[in-house]
């Protein structure tokens, strides 16, 4: 080997050694100088494995589960804080509001210094524009604005609503459907705007803005830097909401830490998860209940005594304990637990076969001997189990329960036909569009020209008057309204127009490192990502 070659090799080896040493020192220094960068205490992103997809992102139309996204991207004038039922309405985009004594004129003062994600300032014009678009399109939950005759812009930060009949407008403005406020700078043609929204664009004021959207599969939200509440303290910066339809896949995702939030897991999975220190199982009252509407126009359930007997024969406890594993409570009446208009102390039916027998004897059926047709939605395991438990109880009274599994469409078209040919009992769920007892009491039992949801075919003008009056008072004299709502509920419980079965919980499973998560029954399955932070 020549000297020069040797020298070259040695040199290159030296350079190599020095290079490696420099790199090592640099790494050590870097880790010493920026320790927080390599070990962040707070996670910057979360994943929510959701059960279904989102049909639309248009805030005027959304009426299924879109609030899971929209509540983080948009805001409403008023926020409904379900954890404080005595005074649930708190400012959001509006800072205060007032109404005229007759409840026909509502004035909202708006928050200053709020801007939309597109840079437009939030003001009274934007409020007028948003609600008028929703009303004009007439889709989704647009009907909640039905009482509104006119919206007047008083000045930049004051907006006035003129109503055609009294209504609780502050509650309406807190609705999770159809009350979102958006920028007037969206495409001016309504259908073009819908298409624009569905491409994953948004125009809200919320803490997050949509970064990317893959319809039917996933959506990524990122923080909006100029959000009016600011970003001091610990916050999340990015959110991935993905649709995972298969419950086993959702279970796997939450167990493996791939998801930080998930919802709607079958109750059988929960005992296992409760012992898992990495996750928390939360049961949140849902404002959703399961009822069995009873046909009051077909023999033998046209007899109130028979209906009451059927209500006494229902195994409420068995459903709560064995089917729901206590993730539900027995209903008292049409209004679910924790909601405005719920009264725990109202008289109601409990499981009591002796009483059921007495009532049957009084009604002229001492030995039972008739058939009751019950329909439930095909594929609904809960309704199926409930129906089967009920069948076993009715057999003891020698009543045959004819259980029929039907698609939603078939079930409804049977119920909307001739009542004398319709099912005796129709199982279904109800939940409010915005938080008001009127939603339940009107849709389920108010007289109707053409049957929509009053599957009891209950026509009682005293009852109609009670709830109509209550609804008009709700905005101005809540206590009086609640008194009337109570009377109305006692009336339908007495007349036994439905089996009030259970008030359900929303079951959410979350990563135990998530802090400050405040579930809110008024915003179904929503995680307000601005509030939370997650330990790394």
């Amino acid at each position: 080997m020549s000297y020069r070659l040797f020298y070259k090799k040695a040199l290159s080896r030296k350079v190599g050694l020095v290079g490696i040493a420099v790199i090592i020192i640099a790494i050590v220094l870097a880790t010493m100088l920026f320790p927080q960068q390599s070990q962040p205490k707070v996670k910057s992103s979360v994943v929510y494995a959701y059960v279904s997809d989102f049909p639309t992102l248009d805030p005027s139309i959304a009426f299924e589960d879109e609030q899971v996204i929209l509540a983080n991207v948009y805001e409403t004038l008023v926020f409904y804080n379900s954890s404080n039922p005595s005074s649930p309405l708190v400012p959001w985009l509006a800072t205060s509001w007032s109404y005229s004594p007759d409840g026909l004129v509502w004035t909202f003062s708006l928050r200053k210094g709020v801007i939309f994600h597109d840079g437009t300032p939030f003001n009274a014009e934007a409020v007028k524009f948003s609600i008028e678009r929703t009303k004009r399109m007439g889709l989704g939950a647009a009907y909640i604005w039905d009482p509104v005759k006119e919206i007047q812009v008083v000045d930049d930060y004051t907006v006035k609503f003129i109503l055609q009949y009294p209504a609780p407008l502050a509650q309406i403005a807190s609705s999770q459907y159809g009350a979102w406020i958006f920028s007037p700078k969206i495409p001016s043609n309504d259908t073009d705007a819908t298409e624009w929204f569905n491409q994953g664009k948004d125009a809200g004021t919320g803490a997050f803005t949509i970064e990317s959207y893959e319809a039917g599969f996933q959506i990524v939200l990122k923080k909006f830097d100029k959000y009016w509440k600011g970003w001091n303290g610990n916050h999340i910066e990015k959110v991935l909401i993905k649709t995972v339809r298969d419950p086993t896949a959702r279970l796997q995702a939450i167990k493996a830490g791939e998801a930080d939030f998930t919802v709607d897991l079958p109750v059988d999975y929960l005992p296992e998860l409760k012992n898992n220190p990495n996750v928390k199982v939360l049961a949140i009252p849902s404002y959703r209940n399961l009822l069995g509407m009873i046909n009051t126009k077909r023999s033998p359930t046209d007899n109130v005594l028979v209906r009451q007997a059927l209500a006494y024969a229902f195994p409420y406890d068995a459903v709560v304990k064995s089917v729901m594993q206590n993730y539900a409570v027995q209903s008292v009446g049409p209004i679910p637990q924790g909601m405005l208009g719920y009264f725990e102390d109202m008289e109601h039916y409990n499981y009591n076969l002796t009483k059921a027998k007495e009532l049957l004897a009084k009604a002229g059926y001492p030995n039972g001997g008739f058939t009751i047709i019950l329909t439930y939605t095909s594929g609904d395991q809960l309704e199926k189990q409930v129906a089967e438990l009920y069948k076993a109880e009715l057999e003891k009274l020698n009543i045959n329960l004819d259980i029929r599994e039907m698609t939603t469409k078939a079930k409804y078209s049977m119920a909307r036909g001739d009542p004398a040919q319709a099912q005796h009992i129709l199982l279904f769920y109800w939940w409010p569009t915005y938080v008001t007892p009127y939603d339940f009491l009107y849709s389920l039992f108010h007289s109707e020209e053409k049957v929509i949801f009053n599957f009891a075919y209950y026509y009682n003008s005293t009852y109609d008057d009670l709830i109509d009056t209550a609804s008009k008072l709700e905005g101005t004299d809540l206590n009086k309204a609640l008194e009337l709502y109570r009377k109305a509920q006692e009336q339908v419980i007495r007349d036994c127009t439905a089996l009030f079965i259970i008030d359900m919980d929303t079951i959410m499973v979350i990563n135990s490192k998530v802090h400050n998560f405040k579930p809110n029954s008024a915003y179904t399955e929503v995680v307000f990502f601005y509030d939370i932070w997650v330990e790394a």
Partner: protein
Amino acid sequence: MASFKSYLVKRIILALIVLYFVVTITFILSHVVPSDPAELYVGPKATKEQRERAVIELGLDKPLYIQYLNYIFGLFKGDLGVSLRAHTPVLHDILAYLPATLEIVIIANIIALFVGILFGTFSALKKDHLEDHLIRFVSVGGVSIPSFWFALLMQLIFFGVLGILPLDGRVSTETQLFNPIKVITGFYTLDALLNLNFPAFIDCLRHLILPAFVLATYPIGLVTRMVRSMMVEVLNENYIRFAKANGFKENLIYYKYALRNALTPALMALGLSFAYSITGAFLVEVIFSWPGLGTYTVNAILENDYPSILGVTIVGTTFYVGVNLLLDIFQAYIDPRVRLK
């Protein structure tokens, strides 16, 4: 060339007639099935006024034949109606979902083309040897294995046991959150390259492997079998024997003179299987949570969203008829015997 032109005209007219009948039959079927499109359009809790307005907006108050004529006229303007659930133009939705499907289908068919030709030729050259038997076994398996079962099996092996490939989706959560692909064409692999985002490109490729391979099994079997049988036939032809006798190189004979003749029918078959996969890939798409046209169709059917169902049917049929037409023309062009029949 006159006969070629008239053949062309005949085939195009025939294709249009087929399309017309498919549209008509699907339209009638979707309108005689009992359903309430207005209710679906306005949602379950709508008021009476909303329902009535929807009936007018959707044109449901008009007699069926008027609705039908409106639909047909709309088609000429490229209007496939509005989705009942999402309230967006159906054509727009379809175009949004189409690239995801095309991406796996195209890759699957490219795989099938190469693997199929290779297997087919090799098998024919080794006729009745062990290699031939093995390949025939694999190709029969390829055309007869149910794709959804094979998809689950592949997930079990490559995700569950070996853990080397992702379970489903088009990109990983990390890419989606921290290294997102800016969508340009809708083909994620292509978009990632256009963005010069190579980690995302690799991520997309990793997600593509399983669904593309599962989708390729059927066309692989198909092409292999076609190429093999044609090759066997061609290799017995006089001109091949003559070439051999003249001392031409074997590889030249096989790949230049024999394979060319054997290839056309295989390409025809592959073309049809490609067109079919546009909507026929839904089982594979659902298992791999692949946001393609198949998934869109399944959702539309489950929701009874009939404008979407009609739209997908029309697009699918157009694709199938169009590809079929192109293949026929291509074949007639290179093989005069076809157009003289």
